[in-house]
């Protein structure tokens, strides 16, 4: 093989004119470079792609790499230098050069093309590389469709991955970078007061990310100034700026500060789409190309619009979720029992065990509240009929109603009367049993509204029930209650409880009952409140053999010695 002859000439001579004509007709761009990495041959498609009229013109071009005319990216969007091209790699000793997909962007026009490139090495007798044959197939349409699908499916995944509002905004910004655009700005409609929370920036170039981020912090110099994104937010129509010139930059910018930053970022092409749900525009997403030199086109706009619609749903979901989570948290906080206050001369402890339904804790109808009502502290324990949010809301009404009326008229019977009126005024038909006690020096004054009586445990273990019950709350028109006084000495204990305790059912359906509770209290005579309730909790667990299916609430009080 005569390696001194130009390789292209030799192939053409050897294979005859049929192959040569064939090569001119195929759509693939075929080029041959010789040992010195000079162009030896280029078919019509190659010359057209590279922008040359003839092989002579191509050969005369001073930069053989053509990197002065084109920017080349690998599939991951990383810019490829000369050393990553096939010939230098072959020269460096690489023998296997698998087909690669590259993106070629025309520096002058910004047009971009995806190519699948296959390089074949031709060797001479001693095994040196004599020539490289490059066949490049245009895969732009396939690649764009693939990017389209990937961006959208990735968008779906990214956007549904978080219900946190701020994180969702960041995810939206990053969904299209770098596949669709070099950087992206997400803006929400609304007042610019908290603009920093309303704008998120993503940029493929970490060095420019901070600069782009400044856009978020630069206020418009004149309020109401019309930027491209605010126009999109107002009209709901998207915009494609294929070639961004100085006049466009001025339109995009919200004031001179932003204009400076935009100039520095060097915008080539832009798309602004609304984030829309039905008739409502939540904000706008701006996609920009700059340092990749790519231009955004109509298919990019269609992808961007789809992205905008998906992003709007994700943003709205996360906004609602964040709001609901806050409401639920606030509600749950308000429904949990308040902490017990320190009581002068008394030791007090509480047990509160919400029911577990379908493996979920259900805030239910049992409640207690202990607070200082003025002349004496007041304790209230009760059970609103039913379960779930409706019952739980009423426990809130009872607890806060007791605090209110306890300060107006701090006697148990008055508090029960107020709560009864409160319940009967509501259309919910709810009923409630409650036991109310005012706490004095070594005595309690108690009144019951259909509630299990308090149990007084003497030092010798004898148990008595106090007081006699009155009608339950919310049930009758003409109810009245009477209070009873109970003396309690140190070493004695009083237990207030809800029927969740005595109605605790065993696996066989047997109820714990008042009898067992009295026996338990006798056996624990002399216990302090907290250890007693801990032991009761354990005893009920043992009896039940599972999660509580009904609420349990209990208060234990004992006077201090001094």
């Amino acid at each position, binding site marked *: 093989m005569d390696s001194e002859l130009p390789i292209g000439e030799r192939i053409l001579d050897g294979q005859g004119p049929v192959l040569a004509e064939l090569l001119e007709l195929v759509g693939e761009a075929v080029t041959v470079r010789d040992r010195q990495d000079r162009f030896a041959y280029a078919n019509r498609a190659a010359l057209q792609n590279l922008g040359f009229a003839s092989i002579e013109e191509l050969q005369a071009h001073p930069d053989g790499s053509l990197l002065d005319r084109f920017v080349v990216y690998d599939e991951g969007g990383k810019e490829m230098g000369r050393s990553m091209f096939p010939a230098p790699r072959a020269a460096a000793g690489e023998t296997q050069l698998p087909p690669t997909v590259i993106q070629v962007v025309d520096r002058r026009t910004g047009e971009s093309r995806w190519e699948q490139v296959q390089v074949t090495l031709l060797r001479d007798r001693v095994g040196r590389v004599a020539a490289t044959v490059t066949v490049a197939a245009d895969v732009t349409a396939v690649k764009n469709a693939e990017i389209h699908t990937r961006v959208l499916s990735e968008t779906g995944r990214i956007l549904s991955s978080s219900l946190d509002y701020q994180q969702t905004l960041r995810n939206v910004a990053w969904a299209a970078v770098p596949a669709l655009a070099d950087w992206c700005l997400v803006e929400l409609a609304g007042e610019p007061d908290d603009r920093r929370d309303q704008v998120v920036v993503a940029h493929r170039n970490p060095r420019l990310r901070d600069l782009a981020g400044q856009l978020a912090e630069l206020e418009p110099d004149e309020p109401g100034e019309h930027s491209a994104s605010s126009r999109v937010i107002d009209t709901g129509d998207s915009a494609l700026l294929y070639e961004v010139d100085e006049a466009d930059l001025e339109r995009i910018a919200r004031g001179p500060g932003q204009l400076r930053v935009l100039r520095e970022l060097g915008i080539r092409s832009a798309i602004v789409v609304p984030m829309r749900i039905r008739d409502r525009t939540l904000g706008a997403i701006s996609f920009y190309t700059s340092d990749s030199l790519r231009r955004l086109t109509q298919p990019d706009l269609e992808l961007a619009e789809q992205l905008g619609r998906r992003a709007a749903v994700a943003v709205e979901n996360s906004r609602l979720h964040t709001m609901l989570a806050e409401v639920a948290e606030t509600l749950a906080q308000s429904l949990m029992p308040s902490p017990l206050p320190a009581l002068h001369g008394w030791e007090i402890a509480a047990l509160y065990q919400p029911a577990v339904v379908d493996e979920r804790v259900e805030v239910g109808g049992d409640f207690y509240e202990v607070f200082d009502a003025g002349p004496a502290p007041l304790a209230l324990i009760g059970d609103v009929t039913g379960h779930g949010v409706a019952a739980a809301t009423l426990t809130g009404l009872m607890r806060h109603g007791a605090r209110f009326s306890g300060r107006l008229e701090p006697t148990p019977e008055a508090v029960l009367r107020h709560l009864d009126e409160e319940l009967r005024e509501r259309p919910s038909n709810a009923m409630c049993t409650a036991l109310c006690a005012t706490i004095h020096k070594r005595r309690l004054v108690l009144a019951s509204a259909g509630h299990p009586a308090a149990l007084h445990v003497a030092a010798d273990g004898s148990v008595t029930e106090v007081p006699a019950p009155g*009608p339950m709350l919310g049930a009758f028109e003409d*109810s009245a209650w009477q209070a009873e006084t109970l003396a309690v000495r140190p070493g004695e204990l009083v237990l207030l409880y809800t029927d969740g305790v005595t109605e605790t059912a065993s696996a066989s359906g047997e109820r714990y009952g008042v009898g067992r509770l009295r026996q338990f209290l006798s056996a624990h005579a002399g216990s302090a409140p907290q250890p007693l309730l801990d032991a009761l909790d354990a005893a009920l667990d043992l009896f039940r053999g599972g999660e509580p299916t*009904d609420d349990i609430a209990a208060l234990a009080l004992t006077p201090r010695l001094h």
Partner: protein
Amino acid sequence: MQRSFTVQLQPRSDATLIVVSGELDIASAPELEQALDQIRPELTKLVVVDLRGLKFMDSTGLSIIVLAHQRLSKYDCELTLVKGPPQVQRLLDLTGVADRLRVGAEPGELLNGR
């Protein structure tokens, strides 16, 4: 846990008899509520709920009875109860329901009492 609850509605000429049995609690209360909702107070002036077959009643079951009493009394329709086992009676006593509603030992006593 074995849970069984049944409710039977037996219309008579000028009264409605409702016979319940088993455990009347938060799980079964809706069944009784449904039965009580079927009563047309324009057509019947007396409702007797027979509690003798109950094994257990909780406050939800009780509130269903009280709510029905509230609704029916607006039409001059009286709701009465046949005394159940001790646990049920204790609940009626405790909550003041036994004082407000007529409670008899058997249905005949309430039906003839009119």
